[in-house]
């Protein structure tokens, strides 16, 4: 088995359809792209006219995201060796793949294995919830950008990108879905989201703790990891899907992020990036609408 696994080769059965992030956001069922007059709030709440379809779409996004998170955690168990693993080192040497950055503490690998189990449960939960909400596997497309963040050859960058940026986003998503379940009078949904939320806080905390511990004496590596996290945060703020603004379908779960080890400054940075992404997308939509009007008038 290869040491690093390319995102293009993620194995799926025939029901799955993989697309890019841009394609997914252009899906007419996506929350911000609408032909009807603009609503005051895009937040995913049961009173939204398209709440049912939007919630099903989000749940499908959670489902495929959990599969990729499971795959990413599993790959981190496999791709990096512990410092004392001389047999693996000899094997890596023979393939010309050995480097210092490939070693991780044994306990970090154990945490990643634990995360793999958690993500496997999340796949189980979200597949059952999707069924409960009336949708099926493959009804919405899958974009594989989450796994891409798990493809870094530096384990610390993986932790920053996946555990802090993406699992951080999961905290926001599950908080929004939990509130949706509460408002919709769906205790089944609220119950499940609350359990998954607890796991996500744990995963983000794992990422925060390992990032600090492993880079304690390596400020350059820490800086690089935090920069990578910002890139992933920005990528996942694409289109302003998640921000403090009511115009975003998903809110920023500040309290749970603090529990997971984010500092106040870090939460503020993510809030700013998210709002900027929302404004960027609104400007882009306005430009497209103006072009369409000019075309219609000509």
């Amino acid at each position: 088995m290869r040491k690093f696994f390319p995102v293009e080769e993620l194995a799926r059965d025939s029901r799955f359809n993989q697309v890019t992030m841009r394609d997914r956001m252009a899906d007419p069922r996506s929350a911000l792209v609408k032909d009807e007059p603009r609503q005051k709030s895009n937040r995913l709440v049961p009173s939204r006219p398209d709440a049912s379809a939007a919630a099903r779409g989000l749940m499908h996004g959670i489902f495929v995201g959990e599969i990729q998170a499971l795959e990413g955690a599993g790959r981190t168990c496999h791709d990096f060796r512990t410092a004392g693993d001389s047999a693996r080192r000899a094997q890596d040497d023979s393939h010309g793949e050995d480097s210092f950055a490939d070693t991780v503490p044994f306990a970090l690998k154990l945490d990643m294995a634990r995360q793999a189990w958690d993500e496997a449960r999340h796949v189980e939960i979200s597949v059952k919830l999707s069924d409960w909400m009336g949708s099926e596997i493959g009804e919405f497309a899958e974009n594989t950008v989450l796994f891409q963040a798990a493809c870094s050859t530096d384990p610390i960058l993986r932790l920053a990108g996946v555990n802090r940026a993406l699992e951080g986003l999961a905290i926001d998503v599950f908080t929004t879905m939990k509130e949706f379940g509460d408002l919709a009078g769906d205790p089944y949904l609220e119950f499940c989201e609350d359990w998954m939320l607890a796991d996500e806080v744990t995963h983000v905390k794992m990422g925060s703790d390992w990032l600090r511990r492993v880079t304690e004496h390596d400020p350059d590596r820490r800086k690089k990891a935090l920069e990578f996290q910002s890139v992933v945060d920005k990528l996942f703020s694409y289109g302003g899907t998640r921000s403090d603004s009511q115009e975003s379908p998903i809110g920023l779960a500040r309290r749970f992020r603090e529990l997971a080890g984010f500092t106040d400054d870090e939460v503020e940075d993510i809030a700013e990036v998210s709002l900027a992404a929302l404004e960027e997308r609104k400007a882009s939509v306005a430009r497209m609408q103006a072009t369409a009007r000019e075309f219609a008038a000509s």
Partner: protein
Amino acid sequence: MADPYKPRAPFAPWDRRELPGLFDVEESARRIGNYKWAEMKLFEALGGWVATVPELDVKMRLGTHCYKHAWHAELWHKRLPELREMNPERLTQPANDAMVRFVEAMTEPEAPEQTIEKLVGVYRVFIPHFIAAYTFHKNNTSQITDAPTIRSLQFILQDEFDDWCDGEMLIQSLIETPEEIDRASAHQARLEKLMVEAGGIAGPGSIGGAGAGGAA
């Protein structure tokens, strides 16, 4: 009420645990170091394979089982310093070169069409050998002096039996044609030969016989 000061036998009549065991401290630590290494290789393989299998149910089971074997490795990692090995990495080693070759061969299948081979290697060869080595250890170590190892072995064996059953059922559900039976059998035979060469998870003597070692 019975007199609380009346002398009682230190071992109740139903407690038939024995003091002698087959392994001394060093031998027990050596075996546990081999177990830890093998459990590590197993959880790494299961984690790595998750992305390579298209079958959703298999994908989820591999993720779940990955953690169980990581936990077993953790239990053995914690046991080693209790057996006077203060640097657990020193004993976290394969039993021999044949065991390394076994793991390399087991982890070789990667293509999405090779789920049967992946599962056969783990659930028809590796895990049955874990069960054998652990059962031998549990039944032959001192029931009193090595009770902490026995306790871990009991938890771990329960996991191994559960996972063995899960894996075997997945394999049976995937094999539908005579050609697939041949594929499964050929891969199992190839790996079993390497495992026999290795002598089992802890090398020769893993389930007794030559090289069982230790003090009685």
